């Protein structure tokens, strides 16, 4: 077994920022990433970021990733494992990683989980046909590998991700005929929605998918209208031809590794579903184990970065390697996180965090 001071699982914005702080505090860091590149979700984001008063607003996601990576990649105390998945987590901060056909075990004095989120799925007839893809999957294929998985796409879900991926599909040369949304209103920002409508995409609210149609792959989709109780409106069925059906109905936090060691979790819908309970130092119920980013609550990259910085600082403090400017930096990132959540879109997150706080009191 190979021993390390800090082990960070996941090289997205949250994991990268945690590594930045832990390295700056003098810790030795092992960063484990499943894919062939660092950067997480950011590597496929070609749009300019929203995110309010944050320093990275107006940057494109992949440029932010590039910057975060370049700032740490040559650090002598950093070891990065790419194409390596953490498949097991055990007490005493032991992890088993799988790379190709080989399993290796590492032990950390502390461990930080930043595994991000996975896409939610939707139940409808034939939802397993090839051609039914997650929105993130489409984004990965087009923006990282330059492959367009469909030419005539129907999008399910009008949140920001659904809207942004629709726009990116059009940029890549596809036609997005329709976006269906079960709620009576569009979920994402109006600016994104209006841009799509100008490009010829129909956005149908109070509408959902009933089934995908096709033998070996998606050829069309049947959609129906919904009344105010989300019940099917009789005779409202329509069939829309398409070669890809893109599902964008939200993300759920990937807390599963933490469940392997019995870290306490709670169902908090405002944060995206089951989340590990963490205290205000981003510590799980098993103190040497920390968690930051989308895996403790679905938010935005800007928030994931601030949480990463904070988690990295607290983890270093835990290892008795407090960053020389610890207090100042904590105050700075706490403040930015507060500002990010201050807008109307932060309401839900704040409600979720309140539930987390209450649950923590109960635990103590």
């Amino acid at each position: 077994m190979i021993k390390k001071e800090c082990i960070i699982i996941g090289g997205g914005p949250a994991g990268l920022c945690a590594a930045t702080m832990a390295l700056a505090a003098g810790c030795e860091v092992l960063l484990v990433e499943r894919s062939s590149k660092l950067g997480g979700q950011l590597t496929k984001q070609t749009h300019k970021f929203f995110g309010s008063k944050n320093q990275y607003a107006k940057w494109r996601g992949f440029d932010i990733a590039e910057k975060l990576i370049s700032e740490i990649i040559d650090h002598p105390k950093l070891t990065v494992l790419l194409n390596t998945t953490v498949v097991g987590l055990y007490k005493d901060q032991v992890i088993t990683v799988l790379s190709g056909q080989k399993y290796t075990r590492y032990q950390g004095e502390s461990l930080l989980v930043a595994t991000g989120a996975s896409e939610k799925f939707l139940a409808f007839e034939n939802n397993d046909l090839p051609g039914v893809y997650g929105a993130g999957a489409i984004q990965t294929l087009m923006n990282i590998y330059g492959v367009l998985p469909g030419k005539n796409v129907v999008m399910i879900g009008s949140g920001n991700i659904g809207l942004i991926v629709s726009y990116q599909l059009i940029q890549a040369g596809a036609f997005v005929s329709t976006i269906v949304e079960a709620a009576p209103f569009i979920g994402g920002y109006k600016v994104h929605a209006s841009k799509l409508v100008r490009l010829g995409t129909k956005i149908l609210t109070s509408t959902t998918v009933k089934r995908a149609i096709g033998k070996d792959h998606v050829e069309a989709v049947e959609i129906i209208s919904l009344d105010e109780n989300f019940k099917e409106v009789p005779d409202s069925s329509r069939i829309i031809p398409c070669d890809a059906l893109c599902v964008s109905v939200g993300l759920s936090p990937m807390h599963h590794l933490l469940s392997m060691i019995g870290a306490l979790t709670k169902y908090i819908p405002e944060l995206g579903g089951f989340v590990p309970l963490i205290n205000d130092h981003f510590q799980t119920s098993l103190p040497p184990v920390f968690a930051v980013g989308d895996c403790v609550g679905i938010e935005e990259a800007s928030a994931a970065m601030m949480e990463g910085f904070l988690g990295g600082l607290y983890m270093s403090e835990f290892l008795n390697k407090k960053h020389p400017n610890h207090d100042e930096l904590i105050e700075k990132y706490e403040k930015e996180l507060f500002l990010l959540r201050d807008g109307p879109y932060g309401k839900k997150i704040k409600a979720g965090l309140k539930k987390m706080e209450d649950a923590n009191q109960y635990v103590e």
Partner: protein
Amino acid sequence: MRIKNHPILEFPQEEEIAFTFEGKSVKGNKGDTIASALSALGIMTLGHSIKRNRPRGFYCAIGNCASCNMIVNGVPNVRTCITSLEENMDVWRQKDKGVIK
């Protein structure tokens, strides 16, 4: 289909990588995963479900869901969406749980 013109991204002509799919010689690009190379070739079905033999394609493309599992160089259950394509790889659709030799 490969994206040729894009307002923000550039996809330069990559070196080709030869591999076999269901015994036939095909080509992908350097930098591809197995799943992205197959998608570019218009191949949507990567395997079949165990009980009902229903076709399966990729779903998440980041290694979360196992919908893209295939047999690669004789090894079953390879998540082809996060496995880089290599010269002469032998790729087959998977129809069962897979046998580990």
